[in-house]
Every structure is written in C-alpha cells, then in structure tokens.
C-alpha cells in the first residue's frame, strides 16, 4: 500500500510538473522558442507571490489574482520588445539571450532577497488531506495543484481549438508568412503567446512556493523538470505533456521511496532512458 500512496503522490506531483512543461510547450509550439530562463521566471513568480503576500496581506492563493496578470504583462513586454528580436533562422541568439536572462534573473533575485530559503504559508490547507480509503489519503493541496494543472491544460486546449485566437496561434505556428497574409501581426501574436505562457508560469510559481521552500537558485531545476516532461510526453501535444509530467512525478516519487537522495536522479534517469529508446516521446503528435 506504501507503493500506491507513493504512486498517487507522484501523479499529483506530475500535475505541477505538467504546468512547468506547459509554458515551455506553448512557447516552442507557437514560436519555436525555448526559454532557458523559464525556470527562473517560475521562481520570479514565487517571489512576486511572496511580495504580494507580505505587502498586501493577501493569502497565497489570493495572490494569484495579482501575480498572474502581472506575469502575463511582463511576458508580453519581454517577448515584444526583447525576445522577438532574437527570433530568426539562427538558433544561437534566443538560446544565448535567454541563458543570459536566466543568470541575470537569478542574481538580481539574489541581490534583492538574499539566498535565504522562503516559503509561502497557506495555513491549514497545507496539511489537510482527504481520506480515500483505509490506507490511502491524499493531501488537499497536492490534489488542488494537480487539478489546476489539468484545468489549465483543458482551458488551453479549448483556447487553441475553439477560439479565433487559438486558430491564429495554430496558423502562425504552421506558417508565419501566410498567417500575415490573413492579417495576423506576428509580433503581437508572439507577445500574446508569451503572456499566456507566463500566466501559466505564474500559477505554477505560486503553487510551488506554497508547496515547498524556494530560493533564487532553484529555477534551473524547474526548467529541467518541465523540459523532461515535454520530451517524455512528446512534442506537440498538451495532454502528452500532462502524461510526461505524471511519469516524471511518479519516477521521482518511486526514487524517493527507495532512497531519499535518489529522487531527482531517478527522474533524470527515466528521462534519459526514454530519450534513448523513444526519442520522439511517448505520445508525439503525428504531424510534425
């Protein structure tokens, strides 16, 4: 029964990892951009949550109301006035600029907040749990995070397949020039895509801050988890990314159960194995 509990924890953790991955997936799918600073933006959102909680007195979950729109605006401006300039045929500029951003962000946060470990306290919800059976109970917070991850992906699927903006995103992702012939302003659409990605990052960052300790240096690890979830799941499918996140979460949970020091390593190893034997991921989109 220990193992069932472990696997359930892993699945719920996967919801958070799927949220890390969704932002990456979005950016790559629409703009072919990989943001090396992705994890650091998640931590930025965590710190923004901290600031909102300490200065405005909101509860951590309520801080989402401020952090999400704020991060979306930051994302739009970042893309429109900085990252759009790096897009083109060469892979170096976006990679190197976002890598630079990652280092800058980490050290700015370090200067502003010091290296102290922080955490957002959400009160009782952190320890509350729902008992499913005699041996199995799930934490309310992990469940909430997981369901949020599913809801985010569901909302994005709706956006992409049932709205005009989503159509514009898909068209631009297919063929930028022809999308322009339809009246789409690429720079604006890319800005919106990044705003959307940053909104998801904001949700993930606040939940992360409630769930666990964070400090300016933990961003890159989140980038890696998100990246692994995307690759495990397969490019091009948001539900595949959820599956990837879940697999990663379960791998880490099982690893931790065997030996606490093996948690993260187990995730990396599972990722590498899938990369070696199934380089396209487990649920890749057939059209590439």
């Amino acid at each position, binding site marked *: 029964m220990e193992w069932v509990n472990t696997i359930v924890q892993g699945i719920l953790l996967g919801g958070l990892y799927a949220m890390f991955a969704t932002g990456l997936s979005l950016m790559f799918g629409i703009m072919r951009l*990989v943001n*090396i600073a992705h994890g650091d933006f998640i931590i930025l959102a965590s710190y923004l949550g901290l600031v909102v909680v300490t200065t405005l007195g909101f509860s951590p979950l309520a801080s989402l109301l401020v952090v999400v729109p704020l991060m979306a605006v930051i994302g739009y401006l970042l893309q429109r006035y*900085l990252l759009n*300039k*790096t897009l083109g045929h060469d*892979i*170096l*500029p*976006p*990679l*190197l*600029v976002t*890598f*630079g*951003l990652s*280092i*800058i962000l980490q*050290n*700015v946060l*370090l*200067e502003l907040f010091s290296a102290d470990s922080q955490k957002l306290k959400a009160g009782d919800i952190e320890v509350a749990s729902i008992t499913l059976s005699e041996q199995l109970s799930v934490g309310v917070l992990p469940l909430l995070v997981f369901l949020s991850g599913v809801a985010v992906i569901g909302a994005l699927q709706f956006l992409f397949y049932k709205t005009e903006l989503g159509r514009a995103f898909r068209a631009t992702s297919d063929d930028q020039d022809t999308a322009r012939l339809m009246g789409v302003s690429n720079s604006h659409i890319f800005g919106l895509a990044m705003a959307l990605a940053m909104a998801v990052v904001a949700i993930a960052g606040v939940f992360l801050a409630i769930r666990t300790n964070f400090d300016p240096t933990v961003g*890159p*690890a989140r*980038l*890696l988890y998100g*990246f*692994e979830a995307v*690759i495990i799941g397969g490019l091009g499918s948001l539900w595949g990314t959820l599956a990837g996140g879940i697999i990663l979460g379960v791998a880490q949970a099982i690893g931790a159960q065997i030996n606490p*020091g*093996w948690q*993260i*390593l187990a995730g*990396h*190893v599972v*990722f*590498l194995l899938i*990369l*070696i034997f199934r*380089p396209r991921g487990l649920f890749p989109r057939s059209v590439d």
Partner: protein
Amino acid sequence: MNMLKPSDSYSVVRNTTTSRGAAVVTALILIVLITVPFWAGRADLRMIVEFAYYLALAQMWNLLAGYAGLVSVGQQAFVGLGGYMLFVLAIYLNVPPVVAVFLSGVIVAVLAIPTAFTVFRLRGAYFAIGTWVVAEVYRLGFAQVSTLGGGSGQSLPATIVREIGAGRSEREMIIYFTALFIAVASVGIVYWLLRSKHGLALTAIRDSEPASDSLGVNIFKTKLAVYVLAAGITGVVGALIFLQKLRISPDAAFSVQDWTAAVIFIVVIGGIGTIEGPIIGTLIYFMLRGLLADYGSVYLIVLGVVAVVIMLKAPQGVWGLLSRKFDLHLFPVHRRLEIKSDLEVER
C-alpha cells in the same frame, strides 16, 4: 575559358601581415609568461592560472558552438568529471598527479562518447538543455558515491599533494606551467583543426548543414569527433582546476555558474566563431570581475546584461567588431586567393 595554372599567377594564401606580426607578439608574450613564476607573487600566479583555464574552456565551448553548431549548456559535466577522475587516479591508482591531469582528459573523452549518442538525439535548444540534464545526473550521481566524499566532497590527501612538488612554490610553479601549456595547447589545437580539412568540414556544416551533407561531409561523425575532443580537453582543464583547488565536491565540480555561465559570456562577448574572440572575452571577463569585485554577484548581472546586449546588437562580439572594422585576422584560418600577375580574363 582561360585555365589558371597554380603557382604561375595565383596562390592560395592564409597569412596576412597582421597575422605575422601577431605571431611575433604572441611569441614574446609567451616568453614573458614563462619567466613570470620567477618574479611574480602568488596571487598573480593564481590569476594567470585562472585566466589560462577559462581561456581553454572558452576555446572548447567556442569550438562546439561557434564551429560545430552544438550549443552545450552542460560542459560543466566534463569539468567535474575531469576533476573527479583526477582524484580517483591519484588517490586510488597512484598515478602521479600531473600525469593524472592528462589521463583524466582521456577518460572523460571516452565517457563523452555514450553521452554524445544520447544527447545527439536532441536538436538546437533541446540539445542544450539535454546536456544540462546529463551534467545534473553526474552531479547527483557523484553525491551518492561516499568513497569520493558524497555530497560534501573530499580534499586531496596531503601525501598526494606532496607528490606534485616538494614545497609550495614548487607546486605552484608546476601547476602554473601545466596551466600555461594547456591554454596554449587548446588554442593551438583549435587553430590546427580549423586550418585542416576537418576545419573546412566544420565551416561547411556551420554555414549550411544540408549543403555540406549533400557534398559528402559526414556530419554526425564530424560533430561526434568535435564533441569528444572538446569534452576531453575540458576534462583536462577540470582536472587541473581541482588539482589547484586541492578539494572537490559535486556542487563545485558541476557548477553551471562557475564553469558554464562565465564561459558562455566570455565567448559571446569576445566573439563567437573566432579564435581571437575567447581571448578577448577572457580579458574582458577578468577586467569586469576585478572592477566589480566588491559588489557581490553584481558582476554576473553586468556580464549577463553585456552578453545579452552584444547578442542583440553586435552578435559577432567585440573581436568581430574590431576585425571587421580593421580587417584584422590574428589567427588566419581563411584561405584567400592572391593573384600575382596581371591577367586578362575573358568575360
């Protein structure tokens, strides 16, 4: 059509007057550097050693990214591996420390082969992050090996330290000359590589993969060879770094900030895709670090901002700007056609 016979009227030439001048200046600088341990202080020696190893790391990263199109954010894997292999060889296999430095490089190069086969499945930015994951696997893996000190690492035993050299100044001198040798060798190897036909293959790949593929350049083999070579030399540097530090731990060995961030900034600011670029970049890095020494991690912020601005406004870097403006090539790898006589060519 007139057929031009070589050596009659034209020749393919590489050296320029500036490059010949630069060669002389370089030789002089090297001679001065060789005499340094006999008159400079310990701090200066250490600084030159540090300059040497950043230069070597930068040349290798530049070889990968600027010439082979492989942008790795995981070279710290090989730095750390090199360091750990040094400790293993010196402590458990009784290899003399300086020999162990170079032997570590060989081991790292061998380990880089399966690594390459794994990460080459990814492309572009995903390849970059993949290399990072590999480095993390090494970091977390070594933290689990208690014989090597586990998470807190270990120091080089005093007996091994004394094997480097009897007294401290002798040890410092040996490390100094090893570092100097490695730095010069890394620049030399890159220079030699690019002047050879492998260099042509690399430049072709960099300019256009599909075109070079259709011309018969074996892209996979070339990239693999460059990756393994860079890994090996990075491993040698790593071994040297931790020989000097006398202590290793997973976080120090596989640190992104120390071994990758600084190196990437050096190459980007100096000028990617040139041999002179990393040299200039290392100079700028040390200058900035010296200037901003009192302000904590601010120098990294400044470095990052400068790198981002350069990537946006002047992607060819400082050296690229200078070389274009003054048509300078200190390490000539380009072949030029020099037409000797007056020739009337039918149009």
